[in-house]
């Protein structure tokens, strides 16, 4: 730290753009919105930040961007807290809400005000308007914009400083299917240039085709982190059985080496690592009557649902 230029140059010029979140927590009164969250956003990839509504995604993104002060832990961009970035818009662009515009101001004038604050030439306003396809609508008041156009304008603002990192909170909201496809292609292209993308969604399907890396949270805690393939292999197919004596069936199965058995409500058992034929044979041998049997498929959306609605999470609160 003896040479201030060394650290400043290291932060800005280093082609990194890594976002690290460590033990990040935020409580609003008695509510723990975010609870000890740790994850990393690597450059050159799209990181999908998933969780149901109200799981703490927006609060986390706002802590990363210095808008909300964490109760504990910290978030760093390029190794520095947001507040210490000399010109933050040059490092990170944020698409947080499509409503953040003065309705009587034109898109171009909004961008020009932002350009002045960031210190980029006025010409970049038209440049980013072109990138998001709003060049012709640039002189219209934002009050007359559709939600999709506002999302595009929000992205244009985020791109003004030519940042290394893009943070987007539910960018799909309000976009038509064409807009969503365009946004996906754009984010992939952005990441392919070696930059980082952190994009949140409450729908797995929305980021399934875009994200290389997933961070899934529920009630402010991380429940999964890894690639989509890892997510798929994290859950094995299960056989769900409803029977007269779950305990006896579980014992009988355990004796055949099947140990991954969950006790579910209403007399159901969730059995992993066995096929329906094996379960049926064992039940017959043990003399346990079977009332129903389902071979559970690995549906990603269902997996996501399972992940984010864990019973222990409820018990934890």
């Amino acid at each position, binding site marked *: 730290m003896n040479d201030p230029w060394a650290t400043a140059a290291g932060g800005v010029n280093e082609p990194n753009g890594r976002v690290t979140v460590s033990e990040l927590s935020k409580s609003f009164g008695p509510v723990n919105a975010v609870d000890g969250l740790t994850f990393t956003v690597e450059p050159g990839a799209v990181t999908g930040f998933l969780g149901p509504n109200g799981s703490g995604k*927006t*609060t986390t993104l*706002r802590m990363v*961007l*210095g*808008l*909300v*002060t964490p109760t504990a832990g910290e978030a760093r961009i390029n190794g520095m807290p*947001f*507040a*210490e*970035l000399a010109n*933050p*818009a040059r490092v*990170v662009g*944020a698409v*947080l*809400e499509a*409503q*953040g*515009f*003065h*309705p*009587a*101001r*034109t898109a171009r*004038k*909004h961008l*020009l*005000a*932002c350009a*002045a*604050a*960031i*210190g980029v030439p006025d010409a970049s306003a038209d440049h980013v308007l072109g990138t998001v396809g709003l060049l012709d609508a640039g002189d219209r008041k934002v009050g007359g914009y559709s939600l999709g156009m506002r999302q595009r304008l929000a992205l244009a*603002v985020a791109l003004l*400083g030519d940042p290394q990192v893009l943070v987007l909170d539910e960018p799909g909201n309000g976009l038509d299917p064409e807009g969503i496809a365009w946004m996906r292609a754009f984010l992939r292209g952005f990441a392919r240039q070696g930059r980082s993308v952190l994009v949140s969604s409450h729908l797995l399907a929305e980021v399934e085709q875009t994200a290389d890396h997933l961070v899934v949270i529920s009630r402010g805690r991380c429940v999964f982190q890894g690639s989509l393939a890892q997510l798929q292999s994290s859950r094995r197919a299960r056989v769900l059985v409803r029977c007269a004596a779950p305990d006896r069936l579980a014992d009988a199965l355990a004796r055949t080496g099947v140990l991954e058995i969950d006790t579910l409500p209403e007399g159901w058992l969730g059995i992993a690592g066995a096929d329906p034929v094996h379960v049926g044979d064992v039940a017959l041998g043990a003399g346990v009557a079977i009332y129903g049997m389902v071979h559970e498929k690995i549906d990603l959306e269902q997996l996501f649902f399972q992940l984010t609605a864990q019973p222990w999470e409820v018990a934890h609160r």
Partner: protein
Amino acid sequence: MMGLLRAELRKTTSTRLWWGLFIPAGLLSVLINVFGGLFTAAIPAEDGRLPLLIGSLAYALGLTTVFSMVQGIVSAASEFRHRTITTTYVTSARRSLVLLAKMATSAVVGMVYALATVVLGVLAGLVGEAGSAFPTTGALLAVTLIGMAVSALWGALGAALGTAVSNQVSALVGALVYVLLGELLISTLLRNADSLDVRRLSAYLPGNAGDVAIYDIPARVLAGPDIGTVVVETLANVTAPPPWWGALLVLTAWTAAVAATAWVVADRRDVT
């Protein structure tokens, strides 16, 4: 900081607020100063004409400062109302600099308001035949400059207040009720106290301090140095006021106090 100033100027000039708010202030100035001119000419020359326009200009300037305050409050709080504050803070991590840029911009708008009030007022006064006893250049310049300073301070104070309160309606209604009614009540109460020290406090309220600064020189020009103070006491509803420069310092201190509050509040605020 220059970039932030340019950004705030661009925000201000890209909506109608700044000139829309001046329309009523300008109309008031025209109306008041036409009468200032008419009254000047109405006094027969042999009874000794007074440059009454200097007084009507001061009155119009006093009203303009309220519009400067409103402009400051609305422009700062509209960032929260329209949620543009998210973008503002994401593009500039230093919230204190954003506050300073907003205060400076609203101060400039306040100065423009005051200058326009004087220009319109002088023209209206001339229409009303103020030329029969026109104020001296020195007095006119003094009233203009002091009016601009008071108006600038109110603009800056408004911007700080809008940032601190952030709810546009609350900040606006609260400030207007205080300036137009609350301060009148408080200073009346203070002036009815037994102790002179308590009565003197009336001149140290922000609105009264601004009025004292604006009325000080016109009152001396029109009523002479002795009765001038009494005129200021009556017009500004104060007791034993400081001179105009002292009053300006008082208003500066109030502005600094509100700015310090806004600084602390904005720094700790979670923008959710």
